[in-house]
Every structure is written in C-alpha cells, then in structure tokens.
C-alpha cells in the first residue's frame, strides 16, 4: 500500500501545499489514455504541458502529494526559459527568479576569472535565472491544472508495467489500493532513481565519479549581486571547490566537496555543516554572519546515460534517462530540452502523421546530446575534482599560474548547459541550401528568440507547429498549395512572412502572418540577403531546412524528411 507523506515539508521560505490523493472511481472500467507521464518533477510536468499544447490527452502520475523537497535545480538557462515561455510559466519564473550572467572564480582570496555569459538587448531572457525547484514545480503544476487535456494525479505511484505492440498497462498504487491504467505511450520522467528504468531492467552507461558534494541552502543576509561564486582550494577544504549561488527569498546555496574518506552522515552532522558554512561565509567577507539551514543533501557526480531513450512504447526523459554532473547546470536544463524534443514527435505520432523515423529521432538526437554533455562535463569534473595525482598536479599548477597569467584563466570556467544543435539529425533536409548560407542558424540549431521591431519577440509568433519563415513578398501559389496539403493530413504548419518593405494587404499571402523587418535585423540574423529565401523550423524551433529559393517540391521533400518518412521520389 502506497502511503505518501501527508504533512507539508518543512521550509524556511516555501509554503508547501499537500494535494488530495487522486483515487480511482469505484467500479470504473479500465481507462486507456493517450499518454501517461510517470513523475511530476519539472521535466514530467513540462512534458505533460507541452503535450497538452498539441491536444494530447495525458495523465501525469506523481507518487508524492506535494512538490519536491529542497531547492534542487536552481539555475535555468535562457533556452529553458524559452521552453518554459511556450508552456506559459516563464512570466512567473521571471517575476520570482533572479537573473544573472556573471560567474567569478576565486583562488587564495583573489578573483582569477570572471565569466560573462553573452547577452544583448535583443534577447528577452538573461543567460541564467535562479529559482528554487519547488517554485518551478508549483508554477508548472498550476498551469497543468488549467489544461483541459491533462490530469495530474497526486499520490499515485507506479508499481508494475507491461507492454505489447498496442499499448502499455501500468499498475498504479494509491492509499486506497491499486488500479490498472492503460496508455498508448508512457513517458518515464521519474528521476534519477527511476522506477520504470528498474522495472524494465535498463542499465545506464558511463562513469560515477569519486567526488561527493554537500549542497546546503541557508537563509542569510548577504549584500551581494546575483552572480555565481566559485572558490578553489580554500584553506578549510584544501584541494576542493566551494560554490555559492544566490536564490530568491534571501536563500543562498552553498556546495562543497566532501574531504576524502568522509561519509555523508559525517558531512551532514550539524557541527561539521556549521563550521564549513561559517568558513564559506568567511570567504565572502561575512564571517560570523548569522544564518539558518533550510535544507541539505549529499550528491555524487555521475555522468551516465541510457544508450536508448525508447523501449517499446516507453520513452525516457530527464534524470530517468541520464545522470549528469550538476556543475554547469546540466540536469533540469537538459531535461527540458528532452521534453521539448519528445513532445511534438509523440503528438504527431498519435495524430498519425509521423513517419517511421520520427520517434526514433528523439532517442538519436537526445542520446547524442547527452553524450556531448557527458564529454564536456568530464572536462569540468576533472578540473573541479581531479581524479588522479597527475590531474591534481596540473589543476594546482593552473590555479597557481592563474594568479599572474591570463592564458590559463579560462580553464577555471566550466562549460555550462547550452541549447543543443541537432546537426546530424536524420530529420534535417538533404538537398536544401543549408551549405550556401553565410550566416544564420544552420541545420539542427534552435532559432533564437529575437526582439521584433514591432515589439514583442519572435517566439511569441511560433506556435506548436512547423513554422515556415518566408522572407520577401510571400511564397508562390504552388508552395501555398503544398502547405495546405500537409495541413489536410493533420500536420501543424504555419507560415510567417518576414517583410522588409510594407506590402499591400491581401493577394496570395493572406494565409501567413507578417513580421515587418524594415531595418533588416531578422534578415541579417538569418543570413538572408535576397527575397525568396525561407527557413523551415520544427515545432521545437530547431532548423530542419533552409533555402535561398523555395519551391513546392523542395518544401515537400523537407517536410517528409522532418516527419520521419523515408526519402521518397518527387515523381508521382
């Protein structure tokens, strides 16, 4: 019998709400829904919201009756904010969160590196936004509660799974007993200790690093800007690294590595925690400042992924699919990109307009992204927690040199999560003009959210659909007919015309929205110099084709490809 905690979790800043347990109606026939998402963390919630945008009927099962304990994922990247914007929660994140772009690395009391993440006035979101995970989960859950397509079932825990070619059957535990739930597809978003991964007997590949870290949230009054602080090799924790991040509500996150040989219990003992947090505060000139502990935990740095994110009718996202070192904010920010990649593919599969390669491209694209991240994270981890005497010697040599020598200082910065390019995706068009562009986002790159000269941003004009961005006076009638054909098949496809000069209304272009671009900023961003060029964006805003000149045949070829169909002849 599953008995989720009924008392609200303790927190200095967040008022937890305990939701009623969802109980199945007595004697109801067994349900079969389109998609069951297992796990109500940020990634499961985001995926359910994303699916709901496409009209997919979705049930989300969350074992607990309240959102997560502790701040957990606290840094969200610009790309995550763009995804959250599409899910309708970015405004609340911006209102509560703390935006930032600078990171500082200190050694022996001196700042040896200052990282500035790129930002300009044409971008809506700053590179990073800090917010405690319980807030984000609440915003996502509130949005989901407004959706007619999705249902969030608190206090429902999956205990068994069976699947065949036609669907999946889950056994779900509640405090009132078990029930069976059928689904066409199941998404495992049940986190690092994924139950579904264990039930299916799946093994991750990769490395579990030696280093373990304490993460502690404290309430303390520090008059410091929202910037990341990293202290290498402080006297009280020789050889190790201490990180500090500012969070909303006067909370600070302190992360530090455990000395070798110390257990998690020893590290979290009140006296050990107190002396180290006092020492960390002394590093920022706040020795003796009073503070209160909100939450603390110990985590291990791991860099592992499932080799395939699709197992029959079960798809894996987020930490259920991969475990990534959190230096570089790679956990939730990678998971949001998983969800945003999977949502449209699953939705089009359910709608019957996906080719055989569409869903498998989710696994290919996101496993490749995870492997890239693991490779990059390995470099950061080898610097933060040197795995051998050689790496330790070089790290110490670099720290020492960094005090006087500019050229080694970039090594003190670690790469952070970024929006992935699906440059080798099977969904990218072959035979378009990608290679002929001198600028603009290439195949697989996400389209940036740019400020528009009429006000607002590009992303506000992109819906849950393929987007044909056409530059100039509008596409030819044959292209419009091609668009109409795909729409009749159920493919969501929208036309957006980018016009440098004001055109007379009406005519062949009444179909598409028009973005005025009299200053040519959009043209320059997309590397377009001549009228008639076009970009095809996938529903997740990644570029899958671009042309200097567009024809109906070329558009059809690109759309077929992007829908996962085998390349087929243009001849009837």
């Amino acid at each position, binding site marked *: 019998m599953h008995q989720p905690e009924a008392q609200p979790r303790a927190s200095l800043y967040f008022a937890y709400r305990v939701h009623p347990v969802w109980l199945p109606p007595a004697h109801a026939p067994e349900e079969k829904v389109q998609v069951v998402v297992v796990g109500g963390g940020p990634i499961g919630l985001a995926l359910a919201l994303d699916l709901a945008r496409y009209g997919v009927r979705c049930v989300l099962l969350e074992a607990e009756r309240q959102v997560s304990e502790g701040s957990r994922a606290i840094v969200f990247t610009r790309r995550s904010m763009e995804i959250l914007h599409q899910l309708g929660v970015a405004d609340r994140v911006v209102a509560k969160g703390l935006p930032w772009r600078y990171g500082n690395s200190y050694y022996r009391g001196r700042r040896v590196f200052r990282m500035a993440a790129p930002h300009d006035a044409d971008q809506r979101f700053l590179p990073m936004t800090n917010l405690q995970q319980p807030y984000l989960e609440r915003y996502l859950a509130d949005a989901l509660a407004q959706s007619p397509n999705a249902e969030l079932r608190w206090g429902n825990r999956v205990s068994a799974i069976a699947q065949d070619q036609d669907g999946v059957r889950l056994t779900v535990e509640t405090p009132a007993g078990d029930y069976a739930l059928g689904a066409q597809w199941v998404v495992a978003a049940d986190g690092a200790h994924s139950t579904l991964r264990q039930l299916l007997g799946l093994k991750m590949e990769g490395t579990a690093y030696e280093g373990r870290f304490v993460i502690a949230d404290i309430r303390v009054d520090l008059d410091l800007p929202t910037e990341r602080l990293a202290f290498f090799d402080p006297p009280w924790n020789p050889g190790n690294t201490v990180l500090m991040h500012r969070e909303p509500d006067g909370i600070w996150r302190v992360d530090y590595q455990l000395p070798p040989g110390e257990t998690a219990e020893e590290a979290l003992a009140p006296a050990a925690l107190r002396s180290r947090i006092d020492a960390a505060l002394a590093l920022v000139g706040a020795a003796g400042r009073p503070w209160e502990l909100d939450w603390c935990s110990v985590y291990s740095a791991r860099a592992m992924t499932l080799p395939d994110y699709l197992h029959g009718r079960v798809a894996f996202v987020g930490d259920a699919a991969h475990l990534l070192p959190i230096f570089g904010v790679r956990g939730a920010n990678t998971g949001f990109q998983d969800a945003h990649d999977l949502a449209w593919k699953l939705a089009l599969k359910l709608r019957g307009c996906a080719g055989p390669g569409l869903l498998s491209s989710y696994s290919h694209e996101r496993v490749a992204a995870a492997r890239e991240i693991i490779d990059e994270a390995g470099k950061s981890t080898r610097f933060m927690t040197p795995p051998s005497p050689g790496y330790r010697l070089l790290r110490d*040599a670099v720290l020492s*040199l960094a005090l006087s020598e500019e050229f080694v200082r970039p090594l003190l910065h670690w790469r952070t999560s970024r929006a992935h390019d699906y440059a080798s995706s099977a969904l990218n068009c072959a035979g378009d003009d990608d290679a002929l562009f001198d600028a603009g986002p290439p195949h697989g790159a996400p389209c940036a959210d740019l400020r528009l000269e009429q006000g607002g941003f590009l992303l506000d004009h992109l819906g849950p659909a393929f987007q044909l961005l056409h530059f100039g006076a509008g596409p030819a009638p044959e292209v419009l007919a091609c668009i109409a054909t795909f729409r009749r098949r159920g493919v969501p496809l929208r036309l957006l015309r980018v016009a440098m000069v004001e055109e007379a209304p009406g005519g062949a272009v009444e179909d598409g929205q028009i973005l005025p671009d009299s200053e040519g900023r959009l043209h320059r961003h997309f590397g377009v110099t001549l009228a008639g060029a076009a970009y095809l964006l996938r529903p997740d805003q990644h570029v899958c084709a671009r042309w200097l000149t567009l024809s109906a045949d070329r558009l059809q070829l690109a759309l077929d490809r992007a829908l996962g169909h085998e390349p087929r002849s243009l001849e009837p």
Partner: protein
Amino acid sequence: MSTLSIPDLERIYDLLAEAVDAVPQAEVQRLLAKLALLAANEIGDVERFSGLLAAARRDL
C-alpha cells in the same frame, strides 16, 4: 627551430637546478608543471609540445 648555445644551455641548467633547490621539496612538482605550461604557451603548438613530452619520458 633554434638550438641553444652551450653557454646558454649551461645557464639554463643552473637556473633550473637552483630554482628546484630554492623551493620546498613539496612544491617542486608544481613548479615544474607551471614551467611546462608556461613553456607550452610560448611554443603555442600542441604537436610540438606532445613531441617534447614524449622525448622527456624517454629513458627515465
């Protein structure tokens, strides 16, 4: 590639030996690692550095 004259080589020989003697024994490794990184930055070529490293490892 230039080759050091014998007097210059002798001078560098002495400089290195004296630097190693001048720092605490525990810091010698770090001193030499720093020196290697500084020299690598002057060389500015991964292939050449890698060749020098291979030469240094020979006959230890």
